[in-house]
């Protein structure tokens, strides 16, 4: 690898870690259910980036195939999760997770 041209794979991993941390902060601090969901999508994407980076490092396609499955599962998760939010919103008129505290009492 001639320096200056190629990017070390570890930099991609570092970026993935940073994205994952940002998503974690969002999922922990937001109150709106949909914002939490979006933060979780950021975390999923960071994991995908790490998988593709490993795939590049090891020169194997398995990581890419895993990302393919992760995408499919994320699609299913988004569909069911958003349907749940719609159902919750119909019942409670809010998706503020701080007010969905039925199990606290």
């Amino acid at each position, binding site marked *: 690898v001639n320096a200056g041209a190629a990017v070390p794979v570890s930099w991609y991993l570092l970026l993935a870690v940073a994205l994952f941390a940002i998503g974690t902060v969002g999922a922990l*601090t937001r109150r709106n259910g949909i914002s939490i969901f979006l933060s979780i999508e950021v975390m999923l994407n960071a994991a995908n980036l790490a998988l593709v980076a490993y795939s590049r490092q090891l020169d194997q396609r398995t990581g890419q195939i895993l990302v393919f499955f992760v995408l499919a599962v994320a699609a299913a998760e988004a569909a069911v999760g958003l349907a749940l939010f719609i159902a919750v919103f119909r019942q409670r008129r809010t998706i503020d997770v701080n007010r969905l505290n039925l199990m606290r009492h």
Partner: protein
Amino acid sequence: MEMAVFAVFGLLALASSLAVVAHKSPIYSTLNLVLTLFSVAVLFVLLGAPFIATLQLLIYAGAILVLFLFVIMLLNVGRDEGVPAGHRAQLAAALVGALVFAGMLWLLLRPALGTGPPPPPLGERLVSLSGLAQELFDEYLLPFEIVGLLLLVAVIGATVIARRPTPEELAAAAGAVPAAPAAPATAATPATPEVAAAAAAAGAATWPGEAAPSWAAWAPEAAGAAGGARPAAFRGGSAAKRGDGGGGGEAGATGAAGTGAPPPGATEPEERR
């Protein structure tokens, strides 16, 4: 060249993901997430995964985020105030926790990269679509089929969870109880308030919690959208759950009609009309 592209889109991904997390409005968060996904897709191309990058743009940015936007608009989600004023400690704790977590993650991931030689230059093996398809449909055929099944289940589950009960179901829920005491009610007319109360109880029992006011809010829209007999039945069902006297009679009538045995001398609807 590669370094420049990585720097630009890596920083773009970081900045837009920060905006996703920090922006108060979910709509802007979603649009920033589109930018994040696009940047990460460019990084996928750099890493020799053009097919995954295409999938990311098509599925994530094209389909999932449009779904998010639709739901945000459907629910009319307001601005999120973020951390409430009294809970600054929560934000600080989340930041510290995320930093510690990221450090641990880095310590975990870095050695896994190994100290071996740097990766070989991108070749046909990693980039070619036919090779990926060969492996996907050969070695990973069963997971592929299971993913298809998973998507089917997700579609059915999402439809069942998010759908609104049909007017017939509402009428049945409201009419299940009044249908039984309908015969005594014909004999003894003063029992009418009890019937209405029973209808209200049936509604409350079937759709628990705060469902009744929410349905009252949704009902006019449905009544305007649907035509024919549906609005009448729907109105009856929702009104019965509110315990409304006028609607209760109507619900009793529709419920009895639904069971196929309308009490001939059902005096209650006669009174209301």
